[in-house]
């Protein structure tokens, strides 16, 4: 081989190698806002060391009321506040609201004001117009890309004043879906147990704590609600007919029926993702084990068989695994098994008492109640690496976590304010907000989708 040729080959190989190494190390580019183009995956690793997508800067001036709004004043304010809150708590946006924008000299003509809005760093502009047509409230929401001045999203909603919150949630989810490329959670709901009426009953509230409504009226002890995957019904435990049995509440009709009441104990239901089966804890002569049945309590299949207590199953979102609590190691810990009961293995090693597993929608994290230094806290474990982290601290105790349907938040029970209330926090433990205030509230379960009703 001629020397010159050899040098050229080596040089080219080096360049090629350098190119390969550089491209492997390149971090993903910052999110460019392209109308209609969803940016790359938002990855929440347990480590928080991965690249955090930056927030979209959004200008949110006050909504305009067009014409007479007699009687609708409250609904209008509620709608605007709800949209703003939904977008704010989503964590995807840095919002400049009317107060922050008050320093800008705005003409009211959107095209003329684009420069002004951009001057404080905003990338998108959200506008809302409200008017009343007869008995109905009409809301038109638009999102403009401040770079091009083009409207990228326009929606119109019409309905009675009483659905103004729902309009707001629907629009906020649309904004998130369009600008971020992810499903929002503004229409999701949280089922929980509350004693505010004198006895423990099942309640449902909007994901932001608003609109609580009573689902059961058994006047006994009803607890441990579990959403069906499509959000149309809730399975729960109740003592109203004697010993603890499993029941199903249909949310559309309001009807309740038994799932299984034979034997001395049936508790802690969890739906399979196909919605046709439930896993739960059942007593076999005092030995509490995990079983699966169909929704009529038939085709019973026992999955665990030990001398210890097994309880509180949680079916994985894709259906292949069931997490559960077992005291076979001496103390309660979280275990996994496949949905047939095979390959049972322990996944928690820290903490002296671990219970109440809740899966994230991706199926790689489990949140649970974990006793650390004598106090219950919320912990999260990666089911693959078994890496775990505690998300809460005192005062008070923290229990019963449930993941939001986008996997970015966890609702949980805390006694930090005295009695038991339901709170929500981000996956890193930040932005804690209280959702309930009346009575004692516990055992929350977050719906997995926009409920089909």
């Amino acid at each position, binding site marked *: 081989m001629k020397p010159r040729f050899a040098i050229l080959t080596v040089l080219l190989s080096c360049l090629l190698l350098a190119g390969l190494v550089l491209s492997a190390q390149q971090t993903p580019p910052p999110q460019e806002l392209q109308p209609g183009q969803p940016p790359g995956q938002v990855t929440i690793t347990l480590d928080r060391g991965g690249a955090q997508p930056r927030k979209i800067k959004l200008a949110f001036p006050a909504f305009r009321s067009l014409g007479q709004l007699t009687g609708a004043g409250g609904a209008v304010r509620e709608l605007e506040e709800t949209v703003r809150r939904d977008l704010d708590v989503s964590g995807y946006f840095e919002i400049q609201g009317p107060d922050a924008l008050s320093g800008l000299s705005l003409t009211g003509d959107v095209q003329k004001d684009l420069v002004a809005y951009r001057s404080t760093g905003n990338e998108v502009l959200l506008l809302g117009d409200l008017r009343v047509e007869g008995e109905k409230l009409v809301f038109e929401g638009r999102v403009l890309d401040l770079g091009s001045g083009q409207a990228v999203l326009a929606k119109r909603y019409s309905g009675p004043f009483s659905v103004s919150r729902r309009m707001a949630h629907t629009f906020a989810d649309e904004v998130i879906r369009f600008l971020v490329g992810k499903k929002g959670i503004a229409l999701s709901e949280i089922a929980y147990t509350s004693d505010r009426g004198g006895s423990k009953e099942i309640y449902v509230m909007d994901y932001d704590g608003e609109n609580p409504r009573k689902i059961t009226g058994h006047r006994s002890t009803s607890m441990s609600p579990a959403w069906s995957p499509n959000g149309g019904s809730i399975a729960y435990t109740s003592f109203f007919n004697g*010993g603890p049995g499993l029941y199903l509440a249909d949310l559309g009709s309001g009807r309740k029926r038994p799932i299984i009441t034979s034997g001395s104990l049936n508790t802690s239901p969890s739906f399979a993702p196909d919605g046709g089966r439930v896993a739960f804890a059942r*007593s076999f002569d005092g030995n509490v084990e995990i079983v699966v049945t169909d929704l009529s309590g038939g085709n019973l299949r026992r999955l665990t068989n030990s001398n210890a207590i097994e309880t509180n199953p949680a079916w994985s979102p894709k259906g292949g695994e069931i997490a559960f609590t077992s005291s076979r190691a001496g103390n309660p810990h979280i275990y996994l098994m496949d949905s047939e009961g095979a390959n049972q293995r322990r996944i928690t090693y820290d903490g002296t008492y671990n219970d109440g597993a809740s899966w994230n929608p991706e199926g790689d994290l489990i949140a649970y109640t974990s006793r650390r230094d004598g106090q219950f806290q919320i912990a999260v474990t990666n089911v693959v690496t078994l890496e775990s982290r505690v998300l809460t601290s005192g005062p008070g105790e923290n229990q019963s976590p449930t993941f939001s349907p986008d996997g970015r938040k966890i609702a949980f029970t805390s006694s930090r304010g005295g009695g038991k209330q339901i709170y929500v926090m981000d996956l890193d433990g930040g932005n804690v907000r209280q959702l309930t205030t009346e009575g004692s509230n516990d055992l929350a379960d977050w719906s997995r989708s926009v409920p089909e009703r």
Partner: protein
Amino acid sequence: MNRKWMIWMVMATLLTFLYGCPKKKPATPPSDLNVETTTVPASPSTPPPAQDVQQPATPEVNDQTEDLLKSADLQVVNDELKRRGFSPDIYFDYDEATLSDDTRDKLSRNADLLKSQAQFSMTLEGHADSRGTNEYNLALGERRANAVKQYLGSLGVGADRMRTLSYGKERPVCTEEVESCWSQNRRVHMIITGRSNVG
């Protein structure tokens, strides 16, 4: 020995007076004079002697007792059994479902009473203290109730007469977050909840 005769005469008169007068009650054989006075029995397990078909000393109390166990009000029945030495509550150590010796003694007396009153069926409520999660405590209460049921069964109480019902920590008798309250909640509570036509 005149004095001895006099003493005997006086005693015989006294005894006739004491035991002979009430008409409903027949005379007690002299051998009973030497029987020890027993206090209100905590252990009703000793059956009356076979040859003694006579009623105990106070017929009013006796009739009332029979009536009480025949009462349609099970609260009255439960109170009467308790009066007869039934222990409605037995207690457990933290996170345990094992029976202590003291518990076994109490259950042994309970078993005797239950076997002598075979018409009654019973609920064994299992409870746990407020520490621990709601779900796990339901299972713990169930284990406790069944531990008691199994022990009573081993002593001869029919299993079909006993029903377990765990309340976990949902029905505490007190709510203070201190050991003196927690220990009261770690319990199995036994109550008669039914009566059949047997016995």
